[in-house]
């Protein structure tokens, strides 16, 4: 019986490899291409698919591998500033949105207040509106509020996404039993302290996952900062990398180095928080 189970487990893993390997290739090849391109000069960029061929180890011309692209990147003063902008924007929005979405979702799931059903409908309605549709009216609103070309103009609208509120509402239903909040209220908690002391710790796996998703989303967002920000000093990385493109001449090596430099921090963050991320996505799926 035990052997059969082990055998079937091995069978499953074999099939998993068959399915996952082509997917890995599809996802991985462009990334490998990007990494290689970042370390080549412009001439090699057009003549070799991956690394330049030569007489060196594995038939690769190692002497032509260059860090010039990264040097050029650092030499451009705007890039460091853009990295800082991205870190700032992504961190503030990730922490703020997680907190506000958790509070909103928790309130919709566990606090009784007048008009709760209407708010729920509003959240659901907001979910079905594609974000690009809101660009023009959002732009006008920010213009009237005097928030164009300011960090706050990017931060404020991103602080309570409907998707996050909905996500935390569902997570509260599955992970924060009603009785626990009632017990907390009897034990001396106000609504807010019941959320802080009992609700939020139980929502922590979801909060970690959501924070990571939001961080990645803001880091990679190109469209909104491109529309809202006008001064180069305010650009986040995604926009700054796009600015490396030239109208008459493309330095692809530089462009790829910029792209790689913008990917590495989030990739590291993801690897670091991977466990929490998966736990958050599957929280509530299994009772017990």
């Amino acid at each position: 019986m035990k052997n059969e189970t082990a055998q079937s487990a091995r069978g499953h893993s074999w099939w998993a490899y068959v399915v996952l390997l082509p997917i890995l290739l599809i996802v991985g090849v462009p990334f490998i291409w990007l990494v290689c391109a970042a370390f080549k000069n412009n001439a090699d960029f057009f003549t070799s698919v991956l690394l330049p061929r030569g007489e060196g180890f594995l038939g690769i011309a190692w002497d032509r591998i260059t860090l010039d692209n990264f040097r050029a990147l650092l030499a451009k003063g705007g890039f460091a500033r853009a990295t800082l902008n991205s870190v700032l924007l992504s961190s503030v929005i990730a922490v703020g949105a997680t907190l506000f979405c958790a509070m909103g979702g928790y309130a919709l799931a566990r606090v009784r207040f007048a008009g709760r059903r209407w708010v729920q409908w509003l959240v659901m309605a907001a979910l079905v509106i594609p974000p690009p549709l809101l660009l023009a009216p959002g732009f006008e609103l920010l213009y009237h509020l005097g928030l164009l070309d300011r960090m706050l103009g990017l931060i404020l609208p991103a602080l309570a996404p409907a998707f996050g509120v909905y996500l935390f509402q569902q997570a509260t239903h599955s992970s924060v039993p009603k009785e626990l909040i009632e017990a907390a209220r009897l034990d001396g908690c106000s609504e807010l302290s019941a959320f802080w002391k009992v609700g939020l710790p139980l929502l922590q796996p979801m909060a970690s996952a959501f924070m990571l998703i939001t961080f990645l989303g803001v880091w990679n967002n190109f469209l909104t900062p491109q529309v809202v920000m006008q001064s180069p000093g305010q650009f986040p990385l995604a926009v700054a990398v796009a600015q490396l493109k030239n109208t008459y001449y493309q330095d692809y090596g530089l462009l790829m180095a910029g792209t790689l430099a913008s990917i590495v921090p989030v990739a590291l963050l993801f690897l670091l928080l991977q466990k929490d991320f998966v736990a958050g996505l599957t929280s509530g799926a299994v009772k017990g």
Partner: protein
Amino acid sequence: MATVQLSNLSKTFADGTAVVRGVDMTIPDGEFCVLLGPSGCGKSTTLRMIAGLEVSSGGRIVIGGRDVTDAEPKDRDVAMVFQNYALYPHLTVAENIAFPLAMRGVDKATRARKVREIATMLELDELLGRVPAQLSGGQRQRVAMGRALVRDPKVFLFDEPLSNLDARLRAQTRRELKALHARVRITSVYVTHDQEEAMSLADKVAVMAGGVIQQYDSPLELFRRPTNRFVAGFVGTPAMNFVEARVEAKGEGKGQAAGAQMVVTTDLGRMRLGAGSGDGLKVGDVCTLGIRPTAIDVRRAVAGIEEEGEHAGVAQGVIESCDLLGEVSDLWIRCGTQAVLARVRTQDWMRSGEACLVGMPRAEMYVFEPGSMGKRLSGGESGMSEPRGAVAAALA
């Protein structure tokens, strides 16, 4: 410690369903009161209104002389033990117990001392560093008790706290709970649908049905003198037998002569009830007779029962099923169209299909007005009669 007063307390949900209707009761300081009733009778809602977890639609709640009807749960100074214990899963046992103190700003040293005291009292010393997921059901129950006890509340509220435990652990925890209450004497309100639990724990029991308190009395009074047919049927194991009856003859007016009887016809045959039975009934009126299974006399058909004498009536029947419980047996006996349950001392001849005689002792007969909530008109006046049947067996 405090007296709890509920005045005309009611609760109607948004859809118009009235679950609690005009509950009036006073639970004296230090008393253990049980709210007993079937599912949906409003007992848990009443408890939750006392806790402040449910907003009342009308009436007042006074705890220790202070009107707390509109007060927040945290400002009522009540502690509650939930059915599923509601322990904070991310905190250790010690942190769970200390939580109410921390919320009230008690300093760390006092918190640690109180947690140690409670842990010793409830034998939780070894478990203080564990989280709830590492505890058994009984241990979780004790931690929940500890969390309620630690801040010395005015009132303890229990919402079916033993229902998740197995039968053996339930009996043990019930004993512990009783001993604990005897020691701390904190006013307690306990909700259950288990009447044995209610009878064994309570100083007084409030039997609820349809959002209304049917009777609020000591366990023995409830058993001896149920106020109506519902209480009579709900309190006592096994449940009381009922049979519809029509008055055929009755002694004249009030102050009947000694020995005057009420004669009724039932599906079990004609019955002669004792003097003063069925107060207010006239010839031709319909009523319900009740008798507890433990009071019924069952004899083998060949043995015979003296019809005149202590029995109101004797019916012929056939044993439909016999549930052997050991010393005693539960017999379902078919007497014509009526089935009667009797709990009697086990005898060899008792088996399905066996003909028997069913005797109904006159002193044990109850008379109720007709209907499921029919008022008790007579019965139980003389207190507990001589033990017979299962009671005698238990005493033997």
